């Protein structure tokens, strides 16, 4: 079944075209990567899919709900972790998680099973204020907060930017285990090496999709030896 369906989506801010006719579909339970450099339109796409922005043209559905018309119902079904750290720095780890749980009418205990692999790592610091956490721990808390209400689809906008290598590897391991529990995950990253951890990826540049496939297929098709070279090859073809 299709979890996310995007068709011919465009978005412009005044003169700036952030998205130019993007179409793709993500199947339920997929770990789908959105790979592209800064300013490619990743965040705009995430914000449209999480009902925060209205598309200029085209349409998109998440869990068969239209992102414009059914935005209220959709907001209960998705988990969103913005690129910027967006929790309350003056609240403790536990208070943040509790707050986001109650926003969705649930409790930490009810959602604990799902967040446990992530949250248990920062639980020893649950009385520490979120603003005082390290980069990696902040990401784990933000992921816990996005997961606490057991969303069907998880949107992670550059979750590993500014995080050390060890935490990044851990983070991707966590995403794999979440995927195994049936959660559809759309994740964006500017790092090519992380693309290999996704089931399928869409390469995005200047608001256009260059290619959609498994990372291995993209490398094979372009005749390059690494994913990074394949991406650069596709980008130069585009121009």
């Amino acid at each position, binding site marked *: 079944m299709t979890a996310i369906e995007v068709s011919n989506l465009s978005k412009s801010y005044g003169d700036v075209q952030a998205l130019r006719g993007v179409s793709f579909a993500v199947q339920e339970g997929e770990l789908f990567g959105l790979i592209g450099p800064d300013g490619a339109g990743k965040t705009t796409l995430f914000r449209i899919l999480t009902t925060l922005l209205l598309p200029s043209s085209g349409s998109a559905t998440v869990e068969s709900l239209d992102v414009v018309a059914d935005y*209220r119902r959709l907001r209960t079904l998705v988990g969103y972790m913005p690129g910027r750290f967006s929790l309350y720095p003056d609240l403790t780890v536990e208070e943040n998680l509790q707050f986001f749980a109650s926003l969705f009418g649930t409790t930490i205990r009810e959602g604990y099973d799902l967040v446990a692999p992530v949250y248990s790592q920062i639980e020893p610091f649950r009385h520490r204020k979120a603003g005082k956490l390290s980069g990696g721990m902040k990401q784990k808390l933000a992921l816990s907060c996005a997961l606490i209400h057991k969303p069907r689809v998880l949107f992670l906008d550059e979750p590993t930017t500014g995080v050390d290598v060890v935490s990044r590897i851990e983070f991707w391991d966590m995403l794999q285990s979440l995927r195994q529990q049936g959660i559809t995950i759309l994740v964006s990253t500017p790092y090519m090496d992380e693309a290999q951890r996704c089931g399928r990826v869409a390469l995005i540049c200047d608001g256009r999709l260059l290619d959609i496939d498994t990372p291995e297929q993209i490398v094979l098709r372009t005749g390059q030896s690494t994913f990074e070279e394949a991406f650069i090859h596709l980008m130069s073809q585009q121009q």
Partner: protein
Amino acid sequence: MNVFASFVRKECIHILRDPRTMLIVLLMPVVLMMLFGFAISTEIKNINVAAVASRYTTDVRRDLTALEHNPYVTFKGMIREGEVDAALRSGRCSAVVLFGRDGKRHIVLDASNSSLSASAAIYLRSILTADASASALPVTTYMRHNPQLKSAYNFVPGVMGLIFILICALMTCVSVVREKESGTMEVLLVSPVRPVYVVLAKMIPYLVLSLFNLATILLLSHYVLEMPVAGNLSVLLILCTLYIVLSLFLGLFVSTLAQSQMVALLICAMVMLVPMMMLSGMMFPVENLPPVLKQLTFIVPARWFNDAIRKVMVEGLGFAAIWKELSILFAMALALFVASIKKFKDRLE
């Protein structure tokens, strides 16, 4: 825990974990009250008065004794008729009472400070006409409610109106826009929470703080500035609470419109403060304003609050007398509440 309660709890934590801001919020009313109550004053504390008389009749002697014994008048003695101008110009006295041969009495004043001289004139007349039976002048002036023309009676209600709207609006005006700036609004919006919950939840903790401020202000104005509470205390509290709620909603409304905390603060502090002072009747009586400005005062909440609180605190009137003001303030509060929910953006753009 339900959504609303946990939202209120979160807002309380924000306030409690920022003790410096809380201290400012709690101390500012005290400082402003003291400043306005003591420093700004147009009341008559001491009028220097001289007198000119050609004949010392019983009436004249009685009036002179009244002047000498009045605690608010310093009697500077008798002068000759030709010295009046010089005495006023030198500042030796600010008023001279002339007892004419025909029994008429005239008051000559140094009107360089018009408001002070106006009150001095009224006050002197009231001394001279106190004993109406023997008076040669048929003028009878009574000053009800404020016989000494104490400026606290005028300023304290005005200052209260100003302080509430300033502090309450300043507190709430950053609350929504702060979440926009910090990015937490982004996560908040991708949740089922409704704007009405956000707006109300942000108001409640500040309402508690403001009620604490209300208590300090009322205690200060009564015990330190000697402001009477002639009317019913519960009527007074209802009026003030309604006005506080209105001010909090005003701040929230600004917060939903502004794009940054700086803009929100500027709107509240600069754009609102000046008209609030000029048009509320605190500095200048509404009746004296030019017609256009007079019409403008109808939309200034402080004006209605000032009218109502004077009626309650000074004149001692009850609910029936401030019915109109209460309804207007209530309608304004409701309108601001609805407007802030309508203007609360459900999306990022």
